[in-house]
């Protein structure tokens, strides 16, 4: 993180964009602290808080015991009493033990207490497959959160979005669940800190096209982009919509796109059933069913736990080949 004062980066990793976002926010706002397992000395299991201990000291960058429920709970308490914590769960799978504090406390503090207070914190975590980390370390659990009123939910795919979404989350009064992807940390892209185009809650049209809308978020955007290139060679011009936030959800952009292309593929690494993809699929059908040329397709991970074996794990999630195949079928 040598270029702390630079505003534009042609190429920066997703990890460094996150680090910069936390860094810049912490410089601006002394109320921001970081708390989580191995966020300080270790710099975060995936390096997203590396060096921040050195810069901000151990009062603001706090290594916590492996007590996820209490980490989230303490972050809620700190947020209610004047601080602005960035709490980290090392794996999204640890939502499991933390859901009481996330859903029964964090999401409801403002409502239950009649608007007296809120808990403005950011809960960062990461999910997804790709490291043979197995059934308990590879899940995509955004559907639980999107189902919970009261929680903003960000899942950026690009460094620039990661930066701005995190900065935004650290400014607003609502709690944000911020889910990264373990295979995105090393991915790169530009970062424009002064980006005036960035607008919270707006989906990003990564690629414009007329033939089919591919609606996705997080790592699957990369898959969509690769598929789009191949599709292009096949004379199929796809439009890729990167949702960036799932709550708020930019249904307008989705609907507008599908009204144009009349075909939609919803792409996600989560499980299929009762999920974010089900929601998006419903919205598209509800709004566009009369004009759709083909049914909306939701292409997701298999409805099974995540296997460790690399050959199985690879086929457990969507593949670029199949995105191409289904898109072609949709455009037939």
């Amino acid at each position, binding site marked *: 993180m040598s270029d702390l004062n630079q505003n534009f980066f042609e190429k920066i990793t997703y990890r460094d964009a996150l680090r910069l976002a936390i860094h810049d926010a912490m410089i601006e706002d002394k109320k921001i*602290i970081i*708390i989580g397992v191995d966020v300080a000395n270790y710099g975060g299991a995936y390096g997203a808080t590396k060096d921040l201990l050195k810069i901000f000291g151990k*009062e*603001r960058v*706090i290594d*916590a*015991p492996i*007590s996820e*429920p*209490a980490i*989230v*709970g*303490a*972050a*809620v*308490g*700190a*947020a*209610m*009493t*004047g*601080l602005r*914590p960035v709490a980290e769960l090392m794996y999204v799978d640890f939502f499991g033990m933390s859901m*009481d*504090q996330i859903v*029964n*406390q964090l999401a409801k*503090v*403002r*409502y*239950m*207490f*009649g*608007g*007296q*207070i*809120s808990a403005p914190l950011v809960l960062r975590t990461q999910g997804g497959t790709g490291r043979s980390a197995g059934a308990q370390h590879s899940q995509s659990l955004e559907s639980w959160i999107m189902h919970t*009123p*009261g929680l*903003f939910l960000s899942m950026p795919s690009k460094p620039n979005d990661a930066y701005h979404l995190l900065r935004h989350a650290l400014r*607003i*009064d*609502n709690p944000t669940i911020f889910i990264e992807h373990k295979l995105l940390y090393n991915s790169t892209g530009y970062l424009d800190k002064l980006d005036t185009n960035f607008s919270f809650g707006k989906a990003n049209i990564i690629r414009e096209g007329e033939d089919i809308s591919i609606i996705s978020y997080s790592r699957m955007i990369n898959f969509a982009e690769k598929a789009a290139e191949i599709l292009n060679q096949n004379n199929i011009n796809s439009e890729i919509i990167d949702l960036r936030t799932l709550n708020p959800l930019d249904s307008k952009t989705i609907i507008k796109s599908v009204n144009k292309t009349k075909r939609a593929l919803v792409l996600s690494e989560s499980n299929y059933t009762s999920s974010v993809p089900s929601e998006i699929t419903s919205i598209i059908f*509800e*709004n566009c*069913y*009369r004009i759709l040329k083909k049914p909306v397709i939701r292409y997701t991970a298999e409805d099974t736990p995540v296997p460790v074996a690399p050959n199985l794990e690879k086929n457990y999630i969507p593949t670029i080949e199949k995105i191409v195949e289904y898109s072609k079928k949709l455009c037939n």
Partner: protein
Amino acid sequence: MMSNTLLPELYTTMKRIRSFEERVGELFIKGESAGTMLHLSTGEEIGPACVGTAMKEQDTFTTHHRGHGIFIARGGDPKKMLAEIAGKKDGYCKGKGGSMHIADMKLGHLGANAIVGGGIPTVVGAGISYKYLKEERVSVAFFGDGAMQQGILYESMNMASLWKLPVVFCCINNQYGMGTKIDNAVGYKDFSKRAESFGLKTLHINDLDVENAYNKSREIIEDARKFQPGFIEIECYRFYGHARMDKSPYRNDLEETEMRKLDPIDYAKKELIKNNMLNKEEISEIDKNILNEMDEAMEFAIKSPVNDENEIFIDVYSEKDPLPISIDEKINKILSN
């Protein structure tokens, strides 16, 4: 009134709690309460009174589902409390939280909680804030003996101890978790030992002397202020059922009769008279004033208006955000497609 005693004040607090809870029961009988999940702290007043009084104005706290007494002891307004319990607009939380979620940020009430143990880590977070912000505040988590079996308590104790936070964990041990007697829930019954093993300073109160309990509690609170977190257990007895509908068929009448004799309010009253701190008339006067206060609170709560229906959508997100779109609006929009 002797000047070096707080017993009159402690008596008054306990009496106010008891009278308040009676009104909660009445509200229920009148069909004016929001639901039946009303957990009365009748008989348990010593804990709220001693710890509540030992806390300073700037201190904060969370409570469990049986938290009315604690909030009364911390200055909660019976009017707004009863209105909340009635689910009315003038309640502390606009009637949206009810008995189990009363809160008042102005008085440091960080919230009652319907999840056993749910509010415990909140005070750890408050402790982090106060220490970081260099505010001389202590945050106290109140909870029942049942919560001693919730793992998050031990995670929280360890954090408080590790980070030397201005935090106190206060267990109101009323011998029961719903229908389960403590012996059927706890393998080895020495809660102080548990807390000590996590590095907390401990205090175990097991008698009716509220002033003594207050003095000792104050030490724990003040030690916490100096970053030695603490644990207080106050043994007492839940005089009535778990919630307003429960007639406690799982425990015998004899036990109830015997245990109800251990009434901290009666005990304080006798002490007041015995030590010439207050005479009977003075006590009656106090009691009468309390009754009047509670009468007014009842009236206030019953007269308080209900919410506009739109209130459902308010407070989900911050004031700056648009309200969530109602299902009706969503459906009608879809139907119009």
